[in-house]
């Protein structure tokens, strides 16, 4: 994921601290499934790149790449819809003086049965991920 972070506190704290605070707020919003808040924490033109997302179209492969307000919002919403108990736990945050932040997180959830797959069991999944933002 690549986003452009807004300053969480324009005061006198070092840029690293403010960038970390913004990313932590982002994941806090993710944890409570508040996609609007996640989007609000990004600048208007923030870019988005979700590496694992690939869908084979008729003529080309569609990638999870574009803007937060279009592609990102759709993918986050779809993930939360697919995993209603989606959990997100940040295990480490590291920032540099330019506002770049690397976050390691564990994301997990259970995909419930749907009417279309009523014979299939609910599937729980969990994965450790890394995302970088600016």
């Amino acid at each position, binding site marked *: 994921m690549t986003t452009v972070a807004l300053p969480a506190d324009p005061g006198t704290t070092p840029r*690293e601290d403010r960038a970390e605070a913004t990313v932590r707020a982002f994941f806090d919003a993710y944890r409570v499934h508040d996609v609007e808040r996640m989007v609000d924490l990004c600048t208007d033109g923030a870019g988005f790149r979700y*590496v*694992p997302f*690939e869908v084979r179209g008729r003529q080309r492969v569609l990638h999870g790449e574009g803007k937060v307000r279009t592609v990102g919002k759709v993918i986050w919403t779809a993930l939360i819809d697919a995993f209603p108990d989606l959990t997100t736990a940040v295990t480490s945050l*590291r*920032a*540099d*003086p*330019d506002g*770049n932040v*690397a976050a*390691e997180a564990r994301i997990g959830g259970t995909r419930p049965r749907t009417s279309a797959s009523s014979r299939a069991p609910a599937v729980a999944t969990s994965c*450790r*991920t*890394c*995302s*970088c933002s600016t």
Partner: protein
Amino acid sequence: MSARSLAENFFGRLQAREVDDILGLMTPDATVSLVPLNRHGPMATDGAAYVRELARSFPDLVVRVRRLFVTADNTAVAEITIDGTQADDFLAVANQEKQVNLDQAWMLTVTPDDRISAVIAYWDQNQLYRRLGVKRLDQITITAG
């Protein structure tokens, strides 16, 4: 040497498939976590084995560093893309001479005396299997033609 140039050197040695040179950049007790493989251990054994397998399977390996920054705790964070043509079995997947390109994220912890003490690597293993033509994730040795 800064953490940034050390990381650039690391990925340059990775592209050149120079395993011993990579180990020369490490502390003796450096650790590695290859998260998608759930493989965690000493760089000298587990990390070296992975790099050797990568080097053998992709003799035309290209490592492109797309983004690199160094955080306040002297960790070099890199987004890279690896490209190559499979020329041997890789991670138990039979060789079909597939062209592979894969985005990865690496974190290299750098000591004050400019050695790498820990390596963490992330990528999407399912994406790698798709690139290698794996048909069934429950039996990765079954590949598509």
